[in-house]
């Protein structure tokens, strides 16, 4: 721009002459860098969601020839379907356990492990191991541990408990056992995120608070905890999403039982309805509702937790 805001002829012409190549270059950059990812996302995420949405408006059954458009009938039925409402309740309880327990324990463990030395490094690895284990491996291990004759009940019998709980066979315990297993597996993830958050807490603030006479609890509550808000946000949102779509542990450990629907999550119910009862239109409606709930819950939690985040 020229002096006094007036453009000289040559300066004014320059952007006009270069605009088209500039736009072309930007489009080319977008296509070359963002194109493959966008195409993959569209093919493997958006398209299946849209196809499922389409199926959810039909009575599609792959084993029957005729498929009719039923509008929102599947959604209306779901609102009163006992099986679906039970699975919604089960999923909500599991999600609450998985969001709260690993978050709380993960924070405690991270604070304990936020020190230097090979022992603490080794302990960090120990806590992180369950995260990298396949859910199948975790499920098999815990099924054996929690079996009526498993190690835990044998230990309880050794301690004089005549009738140890049926961790996976008693309908009153099974859901909480499952929640415990999921929490155990996700604990290491929370620890890593909180440790990373703790390392961003400026030591000078802690030292200043100490000089001012603040004790350990006060220092944690007034300085560390507010600065860990971003870590809490990440952990909560990721745990929420992971827990809400949990399927594999249920399939292997309890198969939705003991009995009917005791631990059947929405994702498990989707598979049962779609692939065992063959009602894939109805199952698609369940999946869409699950998607909406996850998206809404994540957005709300994200918004709420971001409010308490502070930037240094």
């Amino acid at each position, binding site marked *: 721009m020229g002096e006094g805001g007036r453009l000289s002829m040559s300066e004014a012409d320059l952007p006009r002459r270069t605009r088209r190549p500039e736009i072309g270059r930007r489009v080319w950059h977008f296509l070359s860098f963002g194109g493959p990812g966008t195409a993959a996302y569209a093919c493997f995420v958006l398209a299946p969601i849209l196809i499922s949405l389409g199926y959810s408006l039909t009575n599609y059954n*792959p*084993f*029957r*020839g005729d498929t009719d458009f039923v509008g929102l009938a599947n959604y209306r039925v779901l609102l009163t379907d006992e099986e679906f409402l039970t699975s919604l309740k089960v999923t909500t309880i599991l999600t609450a356990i998985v969001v709260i327990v690993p978050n709380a324990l993960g924070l405690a463990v991270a604070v304990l492990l936020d020190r230097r030395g090979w022992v603490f490094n080794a302990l960090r690895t120990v806590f992180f191991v369950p*995260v*990298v*284990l*396949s859910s199948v*491996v975790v499920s098999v291990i815990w*099924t054996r541990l*929690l*079996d*009526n*004759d498993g190690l835990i009940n044998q230990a309880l019998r050794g301690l004089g408990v005549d009738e140890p709980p*049926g*961790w*996976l*066979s*008693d*309908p009153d315990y*099974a859901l909480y056992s499952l929640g415990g297993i999921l929490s155990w597996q996700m604990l290491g*993830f929370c620890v*890593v*995120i909180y440790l*990373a*958050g703790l390392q*961003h807490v400026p030591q000078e603030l802690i030292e200043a608070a100490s000089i001012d006479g603040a004790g350990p609890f006060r220092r944690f509550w007034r300085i560390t905890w507010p600065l860990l808000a*971003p*870590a809490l*946000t*990440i*952990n909560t949102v*990721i745990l929420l999403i*992971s827990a809400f779509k949990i399927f594999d542990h249920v399939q292997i450990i*309890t*198969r*939705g*039982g*003991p*009995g*009917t*629907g*005791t631990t059947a999550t929405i994702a498990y119910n989707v598979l*049962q*309805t779609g*692939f*065992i*009862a*063959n*009602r*894939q239109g109805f199952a698609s409606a369940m999946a869409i509702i699950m998607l909406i709930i996850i998206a809404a819950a994540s957005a709300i939690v994200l918004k709420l937790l971001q409010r308490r*985040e502070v*930037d240094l």
Partner: protein
Amino acid sequence: MRRGLFTLGMVVLLAAPTLAACEVGESTAPAGKKEITFLVFETPNLTPQYWDAAIKRVTDKHPEISVKKLVSPDQDRTTYAKQLLTSGQFPDVMIAVSPAGFAEGGNLYAWTPDELKDFEFPTNGAIKGKVYQLPANTQTIPVVYYNKALFTKAGITGEPKTYAELQQAAAKLKAAGITPFVTAGVHDSIGPLWAGILGTELYAKNPNWMHDRRAGKVKFCDAEFKAGAAKLADLAKQGYLDAKDVSKDYAAGQQAFLDGKGAMYAMGNWLAGELDKPDSKLEVGQFTWPSDDGKLVVPAFTGGGLLVSAKAKNLDAARTFALGFQLDKGNLDNSAKADGLFPAIKGYTPPTDVGPDYKLGYDLYAKGVAEKAVVPAFGFEAGDDGMLPGVTAKWDSSAVDLVTGKKTPDQVCAFLDAEWAKAAA
């Protein structure tokens, strides 16, 4: 900072399954051979070696056929086959997959009467008059296997002949600190026990019950079925079944019986394959599930054979393989020895070197045939003889509900009628 943490979180989350994952390679057919895929399932009796040997026996006779074995991730091979179908990977040949649903959708090849001429019950398991699954073998479901040593320890001198005697025996076992019945929480474990009860309570009185249910003439809430549900619930209430066993899978349930953790095990006759293994030291007796009046009732299912995809790329090779597999004398003998099956092939007689437990089970079945006491095995039927798709899984979970006391017989019956209505909609 938040962005950094989020990136770290995503990296950790994505890396975890990646580290745990493994890749499965694909094989290709040797030049000049017609490749077919074959879905099997593995159990303690049906080992990978068993399947490999059985396949080889057929491919040795038909060297133009190359077989790619697919193994179901668990015993529910029917659900796995559905997943494969909907993902466009339907196997060319399958064994012991329920044809219901697949057949109506035009996915299975219908065997011709000429192809079925060697089978004893060529129309068993038909769907709308067409047979899609080779009716290859008969299984008695259940036989009550009992641990002789534990019976003796509890002071039981004879096999129960009536349901009242069975209850008396169970009471004696419980009083002696022995769990009367071993079970587990999956279809093949708890199903046979309930099939035994429903065989005597329901099918013995009305062998066409399931057809009547399909026609809407009877319901689960009718007296016969409800009585069967009440009997199962009562066995658990009396403490004759350990409700904690429902967390066990099939293999763990079987192992519990073999380890002497319970006296009786209502199981399909395939258990004989395990009992007759050379290293088995358990002394086991067998009797059929007793009815109230002591009249013999033998619940049995004939079917369970191979099915062929109607859309198999090499349909001729698939049909040739399936028939070759099913009629091969060596395979039949091995299925009798390893899985206790009674091949339902004309002129077939089990080998003379079968084990004593197989022989005892075979004699019980033969007695049932002679006395016209054979009835369908509830929950294990196929085709038009069976429940609507999806209802069998609800019947399984209802059995667990009855055993754990989560539901009453009335609630279970109402639930099953509601699920039937949903499946029929």
